């Protein structure tokens, strides 16, 4: 009997070629995968940078404790962009060219991340955005950039849909018209148009406003029964205080700029004023939820002095998605395989996001299920469900 071994050299050659490809892949060695991250580590924007990164790191620690991904440990390299567009471009260049990372998970402040988009795209490094919501980052989609953050257009659609769902007949807008506000305001008007309705009032507030009497009186005169707030927490708190003061009590709908209803209630500081306030969160749980105990312990053990925050959860969810894509990319991992794994991700359930994660070749906005949260005055935060939009 003759045993033919003619296929063996072919298989060997293929295996060697694959292993050579991996060996040539930047940031990947036999036992490590280098992942870069950029966002604000310092300054007030640290909430959207440092805290999600801390979340990413505890997920990586768990993966590494369990043996890594296909035997490779994940190594996180952080760069500070201080929420500054120029610094963000520099941070991405350093991660790509100097540190030679395999992939990137990061992006805190929208404007900084948006400024770095061209650099990210040109680098072809697979990138997963964890907090920046600017539409321009994912639309039109760059082949290598994906996002687990709910984008501003998704949130705008969710605000309109939720207001209608709650029976609102006269919906009004109060918005900031800086670059952050405009990134939400334009898609919001499109969302109104898509539903065939016109806002009954459309008012502006500056981020530094200390009084909203004029805006409240105009909305009250228009008879608004729902007010969509495209505001940072500070002007939003001033607006809700003044609304309470002037007896104006419609449904107030926020967005992820005001992601923590408990902190917001504290900022408003007037008992009962936030009773009609609902806001969007990228994640379905509050940090206090018993289901988050595991992550609370891990974050607080690794970063003494930190309390688990909703921003940590952004990083945890995003890291879970990255880890899953890395697993699906296989042992002979390449950047192309990782991008293909993201493109093919369908209905992947994480421990924190409200809706399953779905990406495609044409739509890299992978989280389309913003969760709605509310907090009864003095009571716990409640998750009210999620609005599936942009499918």
């Amino acid at each position, binding site marked *: 009997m003759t045993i033919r071994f003619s296929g063996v050299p072919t298989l060997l050659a293929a295996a060697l070629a694959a292993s050579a490809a991996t060996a040539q892949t930047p940031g990947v060695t036999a036992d490590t995968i280098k992942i870069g991250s950029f966002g604000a580590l310092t300054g*007030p924007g640290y909430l959207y940078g440092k805290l999600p990164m801390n979340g990413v790191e505890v997920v990586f620690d768990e993966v590494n404790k369990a043996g890594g991904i296909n035997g490779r440990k994940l190594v996180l390299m952080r760069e500070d962009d201080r929420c500054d567009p120029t610094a963000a471009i520099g941070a991405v260049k350093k991660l790509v060219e100097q540190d030679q990372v395999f992939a990137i998970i990061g992006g805190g402040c929208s404007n900084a991340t948006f400024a770095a988009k061209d650099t990210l795209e040109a680098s072809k490094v697979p990138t997963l955005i964890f907090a920046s919501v600017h539409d321009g980052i994912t639309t039109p989609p760059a082949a290598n950039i994906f996002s687990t953050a709910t984008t501003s257009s998704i949130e705008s659609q969710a605000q309109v849909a939720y207001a209608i769902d709650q029976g609102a007949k006269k919906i009004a807008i109060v918005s900031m018209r800086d670059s952050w506000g405009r990134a939400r305001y334009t898609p919001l008007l499109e969302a109104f148009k898509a539903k065939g309705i016109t806002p009954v009032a459309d008012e*502006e507030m500056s981020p530094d406003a200390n*009084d909203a*009497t*004029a*805006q409240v*009186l105009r909305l009250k005169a228009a008879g608004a029964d729902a007010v969509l707030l495209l505001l940072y927490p500070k002007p939003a708190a001033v607006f809700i205080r003044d609304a309470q*003061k002037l007896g104006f009590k419609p449904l107030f709908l926020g967005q992820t700029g005001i992601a923590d209803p408990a902190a917001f209630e*504290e900022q408003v500081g007037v008992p009962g004023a936030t009773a009609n306030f609902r806001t969007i969160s990228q994640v379905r749980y509050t940090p206090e939820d018993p289901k988050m105990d595991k992550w609370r312990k891990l974050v607080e053990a690794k970063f003494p002095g930190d309390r688990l925050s909703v921003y940590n959860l952004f990083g945890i969810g995003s890291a879970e998605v990255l880890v899953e894509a890395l697993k699906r990319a296989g042992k002979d991992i390449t950047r192309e395989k990782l991008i293909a794994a993201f493109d093919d991700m369908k209905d992947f359930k994480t421990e924190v996001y409200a809706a399953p994660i779905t990406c495609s070749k044409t739509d890299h906005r992978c989280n389309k299920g913003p969760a709605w949260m509310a907090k009864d005055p003095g009571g716990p935060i409640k998750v009210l469900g999620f609005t599936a939009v942009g499918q």
Partner: protein
Amino acid sequence: MLLFSYLLMSGITTGALYALVALGIVIVNKATGVINFAQGEFFMFSGYVGWMLHVQYGLNYPLSFVLATLIGFVLGMLTDRIAFRPIAKNDIVSLVLATVGIGFILKGLARVIWGGRSDYLSFPPITSPDPIMVGPLMVVPQQLAVIAGTAVIMLVFAAFFRLTRAGKMMQATADNARAALLVGIRTDQIYTLAFGTGAAIASAAAILTAPVTLIYPDIGFAFFLKGFAAAVLGGLSSLPGAVLGGLIVGIAESLAGGYIHSSVMELSPFLVIMVVLVVRPTGLLASRRARTV
């Protein structure tokens, strides 16, 4: 009419706060000839100090107010001694840049000391948040408290300038520093006093403002901008002018927002200022000094 009364009250309240910031700017400018670009940061820093005393350490509001104002006064005097006095003989641009630098340092210090707690810190209301109905008019106690507080502070400082020796020496130095020096007034000490007084007024304004807004490291610039506009409108060297300017800026903002649209709120006071300065370039209440050479 109701709408007008609400908008007017709101305008007077914010205008009163702008007036206080403007007063601080005018006092330093009168004494030193320099616009203190750190005035907004004195305001911000004192807001944090007030929050620390009242919210963190649980002191009552009046005591927190007095202590924060005193701390502001000392901070202003120290700033003059440490950062301003050593370069006092330099050209005016260096002095102005020094105040900008002081502002950055104060902002950085605030971030180091109070950063990381939250984006924005809340100061509890000092009165009931519920409005009181006086006939058809709705009166908000918080607004009344701010207006009353501002009026008291203005009266105290007016008395200081008119009735105390230090106040009179400050006025004399402001009118003619060389003549003041010749009659034995230590003008260097007056400059220190001016910085301290300016910072103390900013502190008082901050503690009055804190319950109607939130405290954050960048709050100072917005107040400085409006306060500076009010000071320019009033004449930059006139204390009553600063008060009048502040009130005009606040009321213009509020009425424009209510009757035209909220998008013109930020713009309206500057339009008013532009018109006034075209008609009266020295400002509303500046003394006209014609000098023939």
